[in-house]
Structures are given as C-alpha cells and as structure tokens.
C-alpha cells in the first residue's frame, strides 16, 4: 500500500516519525509530499498530529492512497489495504468459541479479531 501525504510544516516531524513507527518506509519525498510504503492498516487520530479539526479534515482529503482505501470517522483517519486474498482457517469448536467470546467482548466479529491479531503477531515478529 502506498500513501502520499502532503508536506505541511505543522505536522512535518510527527508524520514521518508516526509512519516509521507503524512499519512504513519513506520511499520518496519532494517539495510537496512524502510517499510512504507499508503493509499494515493504519489508524491516525487527529490528536496525535496536534492540529485542529478543520485542518485535519482538509489533510485527510489531500492524502492519497494506492492499493487501499481511506476512511475518516470524526477525528480519526483509517487507512485500510485492499483485501482481495482469502485465507481459509479451520478451527475446532473450542477454538471458535474462545475466538467468538473475545471478539464479542471487544465488539468485533471473529474474523476481524483473527485478522487484527494475526497482523499484530506478524508485525511483532518483524519487530515493528
């Protein structure tokens, strides 16, 4: 997934640091924008950028995503990769019950919890 973020003075330091911490690498930079490349989905709250709501909304409009989609919900921007692959996992009744119980307590569906946990485990193994 490639994300192009406009260069703005007020978020300059935070953006590069934040993307690097999320496992993204800076692949290109010019006068107007940064281009990051990475694998995992992102959740960017406006509070972490230290800018006002209106500025955040306009920033979200300017961000371009290739190979994924962006969605803003109030003060949070979600960047999600396009998911076209299907992974089929077989579970025993016990395992499915455990997964459902934890997913329910977090307000998620079992497959969403499975994917989020898998990505967390893989990113940890990669040291992100």
């Amino acid at each position, binding site marked *: *997934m490639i994300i192009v973020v406009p260069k703005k003075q007020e978020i300059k330091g935070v953006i590069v640091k934040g993307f690097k911490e999320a496992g993204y690498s800076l692949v290109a930079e010019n006068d107007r924008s940064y281009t990051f490349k990475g*694998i*995992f989905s992102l959740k960017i709250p406006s509070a972490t950028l230290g800018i006002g709501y209106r500025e955040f909304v306009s920033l979200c409009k300017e961000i371009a995503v290739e*190979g*994924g989609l962006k969605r803003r919900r109030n003060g949070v921007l979600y960047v999600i*990769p*396009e*998911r*076209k*692959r*299907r*992974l*089929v*996992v*077989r*579970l*025993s*009744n*016990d*395992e*499915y019950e*455990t*997964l459902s*119980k*934890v997913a329910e*307590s977090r307000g998620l569906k*079992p*497959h969403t*919890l*499975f*994917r989020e*946990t*898998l*990505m*967390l*485990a*893989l990113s940890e*193994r*990669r040291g992100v």
Partner: protein
Amino acid sequence: MPYLVKTPKDERVNSVFSHAFKKVGEGEKYFVYEGRIDVEFPQAMFGLSGDEFRKLCRSIRVEGGFKKRIEDGVRIAPLRKKVLTVRLSEDEYRLLVEDAREVGLEPSRWARNLVMSLVEQYLALELKKKAMQEIREVCGGCKYWTGEGCGNPTIPKLYLREVYSGRRKECQYKVERGVM
C-alpha cells in the same frame, strides 16, 4: 469439546502422554486421556523401536480428533470443522507466507497457531480482570485488602478460595477501613 485418546496400558506411553494430556480414565488394558490442542510426539520420546512405535500408533484410538503419522513421530489434534474465512491484502498474505515458510508450516496452520495463542492470553486476562472486579466488590473497603489480595493471615485458605472464586458474595472477616 475436548478429544479423547485411548492408548494401550504401557508405562512408557503413559510417561509421555501424561505430560501433554489429562488422564481421565483407565481400564484393564488401556488408559484414556483428554486433550484440547495439537500435540506432536517424536518417536524418540517413547524409547520404542520402529516396529513397536508403528504398532503403538496403530493401536491409538482418538475420539473427536485424529492421529497422523508425521516424519519422525505422531501428531494428535482435535477435529476442526469450523471454517473461518479471513480477507487479507496481497502484502499481508505474502508476509504470512514468508513467516510460515521460516517455521516450516502451512500459512493457515501458522496463522491459527499465532492467533490462538494470543487469543487464549486475551481471554485469560479478561477472565482475571472480571474475577478481580468481583473480588473488589466483596473486599473493597476492607482494611486487609492490599489491592492484589487479602492480607489477613487468620482467614482459612479454603474460605479465601471461595471468596476469590466468586462463590461467596460476602466475607464475614471483613473489617471496614477506619474501624478499630
């Protein structure tokens, strides 16, 4: 649902199986164990010859699960009838495949191992949190409550266990803080 493993009564088999399974039954000629997760036993663990091991594998009966001969041993696992489909991006899938290749497993099996071990931890944490909340309801405000447990050494252990397990909703030894 746990699966049941029936094996011939042999001390060498018992010494290996009792570490991985819970023994739930015993007959004149067999032991019955209960298992929940995948277990792999290398042949060397049993100290049996090739023929003896083959014979043992043939005689093992698994109910609610299955046994499978692997390269140098036997694998016993529960039946997995629930199918979960997870959508991944190309990059996410590639990452999983590479990681699975490193450990020598199929991507779906590696994904299940990774996720289920973490989910079990999440569940244990949630249960602990819930239990602590219940204990706090009983012990909150007591002068012996240390924040992590009861600090009253005179309470019988059995009584305390009942409070901790949530079977007792009130503690007769409770002394309100500030009351002498």
